């Protein structure tokens, strides 16, 4: 089925990806700049797209008895000092006002008798967020924002100078129209990426991942292709989750007082914390769980046997608000609900909302590409932002767009680049290649799993394995051009797969460059098992130049000057 015709749209503010950050950006732009034309283009349907499709049960970043400085201190400690303090602090200042926005939208956020939100921890509160996404989407629509659903975007478009981002190229999954959207300002909010590593489950269960499987990281890939600077891809995010169903474990542990134990019922996390005299970092919780397995005292569980009936009911309700299918397993025998819930590490993801991988941005959420902003999981440098942090970034980006709007030139996109983008997006429809996207995706996941530290490798890797990964990925990258698509859905999957391979390649270059182990599990180099503060209290960044991935190193402190990098051999084309 070849494409039908093309369609060109013009707008003032274009938002790519109508998820958490994208919807909030559209709402705020609509409220504060009613004279501007705002357009959202969304791969799925904004009513239930992205990470929030299932709903949520907590605001993970809300300052209960804390302040922005304490929040920064906490994130810094948890992240072993490498992060953008300026970004984290700016988010911290807005977390609570963003929570109020949620309440205004109509999301039930329960309170106690003294009118305080119910805290799960000093930085997290309960929420009945089953409807969070439809509520956000309805607010977007009521602002008169133009929304194009089922319109995945795959290429950025530039103006005549080739320097300023002036729009995006996409296609409509239902009509198969090629679409270009020209805009004065472009905000990218397409989330992080899953599906790069081999999923934990086989067959029909392969998509029971924690991160949204439909977030393929296309926004990141678009940026990389266009030469945007990326940061910290080597810091992957892997989550400690319930086994098989891969539901979040915070629901079990936070606020319930329940703790993790090994197969011998020893509270290994508590023990470690007592021994070290400090709380564990998030990646250490995963690390020490894996250690139990290595010692032969696994598997590990969350023991909820001491919950009374009401508490257990609350637990079930919390899960129904966020990861409902775990209930089928928990209440397998409703008279004897499961009391020991097995936990494991998930497959790794690229994600700037829990982790730190994403676009390198400035304090106004501008990327290094003129005219392009980024917010949410697609933006790097500030981990642990979660929904409220994504909202905060959206607000900051929109504020800057509105403030500078009168200085922005009219967008113009030369026909040549439109034709080029169309060719690149639609070429799989005309390919007489011999491979399917499933084959390519599985090949990618196998390479990443086995050579770049997947969960079955305890997230560990080393130089020689990474060099092999680089070689195999490059081969795959070229061969993947033979993927064929017969209809719109397949075309989307082929493009997603191409994007995932590119992200895998960038990730491997980053992992090769960080010759230390800073964040155990998220980034473990067996050949450099210790932290090396002398050399690596710094950012590893990258940029694509003439089809090659160039690795860069930046100082930790503003103005984040570039530093010389020794011993990093850049992406070779063998």
């Amino acid at each position, binding site marked *: 089925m070849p494409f039908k015709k093309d369609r060109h749209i013009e707008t003032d503010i274009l938002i790519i990806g109508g998820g958490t950050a994208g919807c909030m950006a559209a709402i705020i732009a609509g409220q504060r700049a009613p004279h501007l034309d705002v357009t959202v283009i969304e791969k*799925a349907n904004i*009513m239930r797209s992205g990470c929030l499709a*299932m709903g949520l049960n907590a605001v993970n970043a809300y300052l209960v008895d804390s302040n922005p400085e304490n929040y920064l201190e906490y994130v810094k400690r948890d992240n072993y000092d490498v992060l953008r303090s300026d970004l984290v602090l700016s988010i911290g200042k807005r977390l609570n006002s963003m929570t109020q926005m949620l309440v205004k939208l109509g999301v*039930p956020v329960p309170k106690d008798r003294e009118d305080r939100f119910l805290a799960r921890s000093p930085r997290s509160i309960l929420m009945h967020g089953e409807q969070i996404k439809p509520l956000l989407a309805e607010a977007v629509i009521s602002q008169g924002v133009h929304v194009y659903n089922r319109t995945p975007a795959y290429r950025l478009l530039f103006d005549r100078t080739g320097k300023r981002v002036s729009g995006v190229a996409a296609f409509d999954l239902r009509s198969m129209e090629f679409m270009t959207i020209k805009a004065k300002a472009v905000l990218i909010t397409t989330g992080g990426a899953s599906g790069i590593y081999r999923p934990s489950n086989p067959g029909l269960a*392969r998509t029971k991942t924690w991160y949204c*499987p439909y977030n393929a990281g296309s926004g990141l890939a678009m940026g990389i292709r266009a030469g945007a600077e990326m940061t910290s891809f080597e810091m992957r995010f892997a989550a400690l989750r319930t086994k098989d169903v891969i539901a979040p474990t915070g629901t079990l542990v936070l606020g319930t007082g329940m703790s993790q134990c090994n197969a011998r019922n020893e509270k290994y996390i508590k023990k470690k914390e007592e021994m070290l005299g400090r709380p564990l970092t998030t990646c250490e919780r995963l690390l020490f769980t894996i250690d139990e397995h290595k010692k032969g005292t696994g598997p590990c569980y969350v023991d909820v046997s001491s919950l009374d009936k009401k508490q257990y009911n609350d637990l079930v309700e919390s899960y129904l608000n966020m990861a409902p299918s775990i209930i*089928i397993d928990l209440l397998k025998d409703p008279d004897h609900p499961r009391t020991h819930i097995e936990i494991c590490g998930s497959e790794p993801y690229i994600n700037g909302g829990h982790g730190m991988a994403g676009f390198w941005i400035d304090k106004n959420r501008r990327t290094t590409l003129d005219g392009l902003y980024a917010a949410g999981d697609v933006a790097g440098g500030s981990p642990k932002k979660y929904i409220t942090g994504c909202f905060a970034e959206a607000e900051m980006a929109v504020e800057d767009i509105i403030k500078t709007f009168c200085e922005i030139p009219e967008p113009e996109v030369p026909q040549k680049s439109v034709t080029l983008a169309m060719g690149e997006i639609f070429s799989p429809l005309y390919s007489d290649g011999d491979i399917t996207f499933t084959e390519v995706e599985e090949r990618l996941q196998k390479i990443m799993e086995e050579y770049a530290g997947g969960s079955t490798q305890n997230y560990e890797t080393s130089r020689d394995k990474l060099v092999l990964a680089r070689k195999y990925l490059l081969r795959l990258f070229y061969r993947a051009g033979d993927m064929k698509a017969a209809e719109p859905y397949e075309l989307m999957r082929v493009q997603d797969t191409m994007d995932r391979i590119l992200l895998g390649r960038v990730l491997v270059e980053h992992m090769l460059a960080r010759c230390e182990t800073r964040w155990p599990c998220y980034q473990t180099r067996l050949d450099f098992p210790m932290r090396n503060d002398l050399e690596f209290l710094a950012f590893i960044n990258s940029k694509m130049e003439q089809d090659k991935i160039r690795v860069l190193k930046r100082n930790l402190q503003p103005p984040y000057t570039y530093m010389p990098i020794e011993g990093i051999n850049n992406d070779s084309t063998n």
Partner: protein
Amino acid sequence: MTVRIDYILCNGCRGRAEGCCEEICPGYLFYRENGKAVMREPSDCWDCFACVKACPRAALSVELPFQISEVKHRLIARIKNNRINWQLLDSNGLTLVKYSIQNRNEKSKNSNNE
């Protein structure tokens, strides 16, 4: 199975340009054929329940794939008047447990019926 389609209940959302399930699924996994919903690729389903909640005929429910569970219970959800009502059914369709949870503030402008 991941999402189970009850073909007796599904009427293909007759009269609608798109089936409600087809319209909402974040993975674009449904299409319609001969007046019934069909799933493109069950193994690409995230179990997000968006389709289950949206189906006007209650024709959809979620079962865990055999690869991760031998239990054949299934979970169904209906949204009405600012509440979501969950039901866990056994393989014979008998209700095992029920939950009803408020999902929108009373004051919220649009009360919902997805």
